[in-house]
């Protein structure tokens, strides 16, 4: 868990940002953040994520960033062994930040927290997978020092 105080420009102070494990009471806000970004509300998907990742499982993390009384961002990931032939590494497969809290360090705080958790689990690499046209999220991960991984995602239309 981490806590950082952030400023909101010249107009006043932002409430303290706190990163902690997600709980059932956070789900509605997480679903809303995801729905604003993707245009699709997925309550069943998120209920499943909470079931599988919400309880601080040995290698899974579902974290939220809280500012004041509201949830302003989330991140989900886990450590996987030998996935795609690579040694154990941390995978981030979901991140979202409220649009009015972008560029306030929320994503960076979430990534830092999950990276610290992965490091404690003994892994030295964190990976993610982003759609090529998702420049907002791609730029964010780049700004955090992430570079192209030595893997190439492949797909085939089987419809």
């Amino acid at each position, binding site marked *: 868990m981490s806590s950082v105080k952030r400023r909101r420009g010249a107009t006043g102070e932002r409430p303290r940002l706190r990163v902690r494990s997600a709980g059932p009471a956070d789900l509605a806000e997480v679903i809303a953040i995801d729905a604003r970004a993707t245009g699709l509300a997925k309550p069943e998907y998120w209920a499943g994520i909470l079931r599988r990742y919400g309880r601080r499982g040995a290698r899974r993390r579902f974290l939220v960033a809280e500012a004041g009384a509201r949830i302003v961002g989330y991140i989900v990931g886990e450590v996987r062994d030998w996935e795609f032939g690579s040694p154990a590494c941390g995978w981030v497969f979901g991140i979202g930040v409220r649009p009015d809290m972008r*560029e306030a360090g929320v994503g960076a705080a979430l990534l830092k927290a999950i990276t610290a958790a992965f490091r404690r689990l003994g892994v030295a690499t964190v990976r993610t997978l982003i759609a*090529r*046209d998702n*420049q907002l999220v*791609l*730029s964010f991960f*780049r*700004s955090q*020092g992430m570079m*192209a991984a030595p893997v190439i995602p492949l797909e085939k239309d089987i419809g």
Partner: protein
Amino acid sequence: MRLQKNTLLALYSVLEFAAQPGRQLSVAGIAASLRVSPHHLAKVLRTLGRAGLVDSVRGARGGYRFAGNARRVTLMDVIGLFEDIGAPRPRARRGRRPAEQALGEVLQEIDDTARATFGSVTLDTMLKLIGRHNGRR
């Protein structure tokens, strides 16, 4: 992947400006550090100026200074001013040989990846990367 000389000059120059926002740098000074003629560099800087990435300052001690937002401007924004990298290739034209079409598909895949990479790296991210390389020296 190779970029044209003017594209590289533009990238190096804009990074130099972005690293010192607000500071006015002379064409001669940057040209010397990049080992090119001031005349050649001036043409590149004029293109950056027209795109709003640098402002020219007139006068005897004139020069240029950064005018963009380093957290928003990407490498692709600069590259796109000088060359057409990764522009969508024409779809399969009638009469194209199958091998030509297949190779075009693979080349398009490479172009799309290059565009996504350049489009996701901001000047601010580049400055951090440069800082890390400086730290390794």
